[in-house]
């Protein structure tokens, strides 16, 4: 008898544990505090800010969750699908937000809490990227943006007989065609070094300077096969690969870091947030060897995120308040100083504190000015809802050219075919 009783109590305990286990996930802490979680990737520079916010709001406790960028968005999609598990505030990257805009019913309309009054804070295009339904549905508040520059290694430029002064370097390449000519000069002089890390980033930079990429602004239809800009950008970038002037590295991969450390390439496209990655990869011994110049073709946008509030959270109002505070100009300025992530609000990026910032590691480059100027002239490219699905197809195609598996035109044709399927 005692055996049965033990078994049934065990079963009951197990069941209770299961139920308790399912009931978890956010909510109120035992001490009556409101518990908020914020899901981000890379370095948003929030750690100090969150501590300060907690100190000012003793009833709120904030937990920061960081995972890798791709994983972050995949996870978020699954959590939205499952209806549980998402953080109270989630970061969404610019390249992914169109995708999530399709499922806006899973998110809180921040306009319900008065977000529309904040509109004037942001550069207009940034605000628009985070909203839908003619601006009536506010999905996310903009964090940083990624205006574009070009980073180069001074010692390698010197070895190739090229100018090393950042002004003079910027003047070498007003256009991408001229950038390719510099590549030829460089390769002729220093054949054992690569001119650029990867064709993929050059391609993206060129494409991001056009008004439309793979999808039409008017109706979001796939135009990657007919938009001449796409083929032009592809051909330009691929020609670097064909001539073996690229390191054929996957951007920001382990190999990319090793190559940075070994100084095996001379230039890389660098949005504001990439400076931290280059510094981390190249290490202290390369301090002062990298520098920042203007990018060919003028400015462009690359990256930058938004903070959104999934509906499944229990404290949407408190979550909104925190997101609003974190994205306010005052905080964006501080984040720029800490991590180098460029503010997306004119009041912040035009502030003398920001514009006078120099980056010691990059040979004391006036990054505040360079990126701020680039931000002024910035016209972001239109991203379709399926942009994130189509982009890897073209990246793989460029990689096939770089590794010598396919000719540029074959690779492009295959990519267009695959992209058409992916965009269906």
């Amino acid at each position, binding site marked *: 008898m005692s055996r049965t009783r033990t078994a049934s109590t065990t079963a009951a305990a197990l069941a209770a544990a299961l139920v308790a286990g399912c009931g978890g996930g956010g909510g109120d802490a035992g001490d009556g505090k409101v518990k908020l979680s914020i899901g981000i990737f890379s370095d948003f520079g929030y750690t100090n800010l969150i501590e300060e916010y907690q100190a000012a709001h003793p009833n709120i406790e904030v937990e920061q969750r960081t995972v890798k960028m*791709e994983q972050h968005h995949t996870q978020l999609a699954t959590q939205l699908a499952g209806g549980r598990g998402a953080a109270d505030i989630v970061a969404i990257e610019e390249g992914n937000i169109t995708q999530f805009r399709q499922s806006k019913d899973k998110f809180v309309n921040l306009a319900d809490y008065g977000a529309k009054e904040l509109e004037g804070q942001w550069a207009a295009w940034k605000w628009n990227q985070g909203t839908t339904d003619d601006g009536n549905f506010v999905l996310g508040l903009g964090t940083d943006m990624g205006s574009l520059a070009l980073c180069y290694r001074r010692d390698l430029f010197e070895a190739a007989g090229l100018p090393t002064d950042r002004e003079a370097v910027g003047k070498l390449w007003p256009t991408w065609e001229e950038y390719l000519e510099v590549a030829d000069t460089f390769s002729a002089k220093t054949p054992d070094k690569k001119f650029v890390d990867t064709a993929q980033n050059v391609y993206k930079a060129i494409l991001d300077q056009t008004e439309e990429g793979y999808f039409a602004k008017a109706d979001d239809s796939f135009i990657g096969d007919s938009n001449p800009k796409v083929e032009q950008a592809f051909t330009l970038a691929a020609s670097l690969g064909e001539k073996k002037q690229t390191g054929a590295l996957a951007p920001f991969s382990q190999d990319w870091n090793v190559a940075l450390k070994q100084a095996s390439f001379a230039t890389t496209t660098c949005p504001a947030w990439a400076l931290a990655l280059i510094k981390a990869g190249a290490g202290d011994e390369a301090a002062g060897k990298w520098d920042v110049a203007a990018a060919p073709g003028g400015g462009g946008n690359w990256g930058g995120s938004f903070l959104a509030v999934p509906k499944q959270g229990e404290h949407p109002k408190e979550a909104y308040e925190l997101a609003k505070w974190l994205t306010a100009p005052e905080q964006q300025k501080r984040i720029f100083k800490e991590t180098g992530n460029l503010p997306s609000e004119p009041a912040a990026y035009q502030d003398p504190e920001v514009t006078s910032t120099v980056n010691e590691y990059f040979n004391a480059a006036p990054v505040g000015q360079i990126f701020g100027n680039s931000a002024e002239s910035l016209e972001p490219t239109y991203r379709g809802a399926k942009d994130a699905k189509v982009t890897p197809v073209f*990246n793989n195609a460029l990689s096939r050219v770089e590794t010598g*598996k396919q000719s540029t035109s074959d690779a492009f044709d295959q990519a267009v075919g695959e992209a058409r399927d992916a965009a269906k």
Partner: protein
Amino acid sequence: MSWRDKLGRLDTKYTPYVIIAPFFVVFGVFGLYPLLHTAWVSLHDWQLIDGDQGFVGLANYTALLADPNFWNALGNTISLFLLSTVPQLFAALGLAALLDRGLRGRAFWRAGVLLPNVISVAAVALVFAQLFGRDFGIVNALLGVVGIDPVDWRAQTWASHLAISSMVVWRWTGYNALIYLAAMQSVPKDLYESAMLDGASRRRVFWSITVPSIRPTILFTVIVSTIGGMQLFVEPQLFDPGGTATGTGGDDRQFQTLVMYLYEKGFRLFDAGYSSAVAWVLFMVVLVVAVVNFTVARRIASKG
């Protein structure tokens, strides 16, 4: 019959069921239910975030069978499975035979072979990715010493398959060796003694006594490795420089396995219906391969 006796009889009758029930409950919740739910999803146009978009019958399956990327992934999976499982099991057998001898510091060596298996697979993949680096990898540096040109391990089909297989072999050989070792130790010693008296060589003893005696164990490892091999995912996924951003297993899908394809469709392209169809086809393939394996392995083993 007293109340107490009745209860006692109920106890002996039903308690065993209560005790084994947790397994079936857990299996039902985490095994059977997902399996059936996946089948249901695979018959729909199902988007990951937005859910069911309507019943489509077998459309996902017919599309799958006409999908060259699916066949490519299947071919890669089989190639990787053969390249890793066959050498792995033979190496494990040899290793076990060595460990079975009276070595000095036996416990140390036996524990040592299990070490690779204990290390996180993500760490293994990261280290191997570095070893097989194109520009600064150790493997290429060693090849250079003997005058072989550097190999672009990720770009070439055969090279990438070799590199990934080496990870799997490194990780699982010791594990299988320990299983074989356990089986070898239960082989009656008098069999060996009489063989020695008859003047049989070590090799002859190994193939004619040891291997036939551990037949069921070999069968078991073959089937377990088959199931594992067909579901290969983490090693190739982390070997891909694009990582989860692409999940295509190289720029030409040269090492994309079936599970990677499933992941790409379901979690990067958000097509849960199609991804579920891949999952079910994979399930079927594993069943078929396991059955074929079982019959073949049994026949080979029984010849001994």
